[in-house]
């Protein structure tokens, strides 16, 4: 549980946080299923990171340059859930 993380970090020398648990089981067992899932998750994280960086850059530049603002709006449309 995410809410228990601070207690573990303060009390333990080493802590596995969030998806590090999935990575640890894949690393220890070398099972193809788990390794494959890990690669897929890493690919998805890469896509999300690129979108975040593009969005932050577009939103920041968009305050002074309208085409960047349009790009930021498009990215918001892509990622908005409604």
């Amino acid at each position, binding site marked *: *549980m*995410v*809410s*228990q993380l601070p207690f573990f970090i303060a009390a333990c020398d080493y802590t596995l946080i969030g998806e590090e648990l999935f990575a640890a089981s894949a690393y220890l067992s070398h099972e193809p299923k788990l390794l494959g899932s890990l690669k897929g998750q890493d690919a998805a994280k890469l896509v999300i990171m690129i979108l975040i960086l593009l969005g932050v850059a577009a939103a920041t530049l968009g305050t002074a340059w309208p085409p960047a603002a349009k790009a930021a709006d498009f990215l918001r449309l892509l990622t908005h*859930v*409604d």
Partner: protein
Amino acid sequence: MGRLLERLDKVDRRVIYILMAASVIVPLALKLDFPIPIGSGPSMDLYMAIDTLPPGSTVIISFDYDPSTKAELQPMAVALTRHLFGHGVRVIGMAMWPQGASLGQQAMAQAADSLGAEQYEDWVNLGYTVGAGVSLLRMGSSIEAVYPQDRDGVPYDSIPLMRNVRRLGDVDLAISLSAGDPGIHSWVMMAKDTYGVPVGGGCTAVSAPEFYTYLGTGQLVGLLGGLRGAADYETILRERIPGAPGGLATPGMAAQSISHLVIMGFIVIGNVAFIAGRSKRKGGAK
């Protein structure tokens, strides 16, 4: 000094327990009171979200907690229901935790009795539903499919309040008072993101940090975090609504203040003893 630190490091845990108990009991017994400053923040955001609802609106409160977290969440439930009834808003109570239905009944009945709200016209307790997020998904198309009758066995169609509320989208605001899973995450996923219903939240202090992400994106309209959130809400009600009664959270803040100071003292003493012991071991090794 070294011997003192060694003794402190080995202090019996019963001493810690007694100091902890005293830090909670003494402020409550002495009725200590510290002023609670209310600025803009998640508590005020939730208050404004409710206060700007027109009278006659309908709000769902989901009592997703049990007696173990009652100390933090029940004062929120009481303060919220009082505000809603006083504002002329109709309240539908439900629960995704089994014991939440009874705790919600207690809060709503208490507020309704003091403000003259009538059951089935102004409020209703639909009771416990077992499906968690799946129930909310189903409520998006039909609330009656999940709750064919309320907690007391009254059929859905016989409840005047529910006549114009057939789906989750017919509700103006949903508030989840949650102690864990299922709770605010399910409400944000299903009610807000799938059906567009604004969602507010109340949660235990330990889980409040994870819900700040939803506040940042606007998926939560406001959040009451722990006993402090409940005390904030009670203070806002007292400041803005003449004659609003006090609750249990505000007196609890004095006890929480002193006990926080005591725990901080324990952490400091423990770390001082640890660092002194580590230096001594390094010095001995040289």
